[in-house]
């Protein structure tokens, strides 16, 4: 059966990872969301050997590292992207507003109290019966955009991932006291990658020896397809590396031939989260394709600018359109060996930038710009519906200290004199309302927690 490849049937979901780069397995909570467009991919850049090759033609290109990244443009609804926003900010403080029952106020900012998981997983089902899993994601850029013309608050969320692949959750074949499932990752050999015959492509694993389980090592038998297991064992290290915080992933070898499963550049690897209840003959398999699912979406309207307002230093301010961007310094950490990076890491300072345009209405911003006078920027967007009586859904973006830059207004035609202000945003420990970080994202919604 072939997929229809109809983009309008695509589905997307995310979940936090409890261990960075360890794809969430059974029992994980995934959160479905809509999007307008996306570009998530394993980008493959072949390498070219520059040796002089008689014939004046390039020799066959070699494999290069994968860059797994992309971005999505979304219409912002209350709740739907709160976890992405919380992840980008790193921390969140959640409180119940006075008099509320099901309402929660989430202040997402680096100085908030609860740490949000540092990585997330993302799945894209593009109606091709081959949903793509992305592991170890970190947001690299988050940009909000709103204009009086377009009207709908949009966000562009760009992310880097440690890898992308397709395996299903592991399925228990034999395990009388199921308390955990291993996680399998990697890419199948091209010859084994048969979507039409799932049973022939399955990766099977069976525990064969737990003599050394006390040292964190067990032996397993592995195979692809329905044939019987052989006798060649693969050594598997259990759990996480306490020094790096990353999971141990061990290569699997065919129990009959001894050949590596997958290929050396992207092997098929396995992680057992813990040693709990692992017994000889416990067995699992993983399908070559992640199973599709029926999504559940947030049922609240998108934020419409009709119910929004912009405030500069506490006063309503007329602007036509704005973008507010957070750039996070995340980079892949590559190691010698293999095509995927080991992880995405965060090194350096984040940056927040604001830009807005309007018709030239007063000299106020001109004076601020030329005198370098900082201002406080606030965008408030409300939903048409309430969580409960008296408690609306809202999203509030606050930059307490914006330093203007750019050019002052000038005449661009007989009927055009726009004023564009760009500003860099910085923390302000003296903010009278307690918004001390460069960008503070505040949301009121019905979600009880943004850290799970």
């Amino acid at each position, binding site marked *: 059966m072939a997929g229809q490849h109809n983009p309008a049937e695509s589905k997307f979901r995310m979940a936090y990872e409890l261990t960075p780069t360890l794809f969430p397995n059974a029992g994980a909570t995934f959160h479905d969301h809509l999007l307008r467009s996306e570009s998530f991919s394993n980008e493959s850049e072949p390498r070219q050997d520059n040796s002089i090759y008689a014939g004046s033609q390039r020799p066959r290109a070699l494999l290069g590292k994968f860059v797994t990244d992309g971005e999505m443009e979304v219409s912002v609804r209350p709740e739907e992207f709160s976890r992405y926003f919380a992840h980008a900010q790193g921390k969140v403080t959640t409180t119940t507003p006075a008099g509320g029952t099901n309402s929660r106020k989430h202040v997402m900012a680096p100085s908030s109290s609860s740490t949000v998981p540092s990585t997330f997983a993302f799945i894209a089902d593009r109606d091709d019966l081959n949903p793509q899993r992305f592991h170890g994601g970190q947001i690299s850029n988050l940009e909000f955009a709103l204009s009086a013309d377009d009207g709908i608050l949009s966000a562009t969320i760009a992310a880097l991932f440690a890898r992308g692949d397709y395996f299903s959750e592991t399925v228990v074949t034999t395990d009388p006291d199921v308390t955990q499932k291993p996680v399998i990752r990697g890419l199948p050999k091209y010859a084994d990658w048969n979507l039409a015959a799932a049973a022939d492509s399955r990766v099977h694993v069976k525990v064969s020896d737990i003599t050394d389980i006390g040292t964190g090592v067990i032996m397993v038998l592995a195979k692809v397809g329905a044939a019987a297991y052989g006798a060649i064992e693969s050594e598997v290290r259990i759990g996480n590396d306490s020094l790096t915080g990353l999971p141990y992933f061990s290569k699997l070898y065919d129990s009959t031939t001894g050949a590596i499963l997958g290929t050396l550049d992207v092997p098929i690897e396995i992680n057992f989260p813990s040693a709990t209840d692992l017994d000889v003959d416990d067995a699992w398999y993983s399908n070559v394709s992640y199973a599709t699912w029926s999504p559940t979406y*947030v049922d609240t309207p998108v934020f419409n600018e009709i119910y929004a307002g912009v405030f500069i230093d506490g006063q309503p301010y007329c602007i036509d359109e704005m973008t507010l961007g957070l750039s996070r310094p995340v980079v892949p950490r590559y190691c010698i060996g293999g095509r995927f990076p080991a992880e995405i890491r965060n090194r350096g300072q984040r940056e927040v930038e604001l830009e807005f345009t309007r018709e030239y209405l007063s000299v106020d911003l001109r004076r601020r710009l030329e005198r370098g006078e900082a201002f406080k920027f606030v965008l408030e967007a409300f939903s048409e519906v309430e969580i409960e009586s008296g408690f609306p859904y809202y999203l509030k973006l606050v930059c307490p200290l914006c330093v203007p830059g750019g050019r002052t207004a000038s005449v661009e035609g007989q009927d055009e004199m726009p004023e564009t202000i760009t500003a860099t945003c910085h923390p302000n420990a003296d903010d009278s309302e307690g918004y001390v970080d460069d960008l503070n994202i505040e949301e009121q919604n019905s979600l009880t927690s943004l850290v799970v």
Partner: protein
Amino acid sequence: MSGSEQYLVTLNNEGLNGPRRREARFAHGPVKFNADDPRTRSQLVVLSESEVEQLTANSDWTIRKAEASEIPEGLGRGSLRGRLRQRRAPKETSVNAGSSEN
């Protein structure tokens, strides 16, 4: 699709991890749930086996097979019988043909 049966699907009122207003896109059609509205907190829905597994694994939901007495004839959301009855309804009984499916 195999194993399509009517279930009483409830979006729990307490202890939710996700939103209190949701639209589930089941294979048999979309169904809206509101944890705070007794009329739409629980719905009769035809579910596939994978949907049953999916909802069972999610602590936000409570599901059970619907008793025969709970299924109003032809009125269950996503009910095959209900859909057939709607399609067979004579056109002259439809007030507005453009929205009769709703």
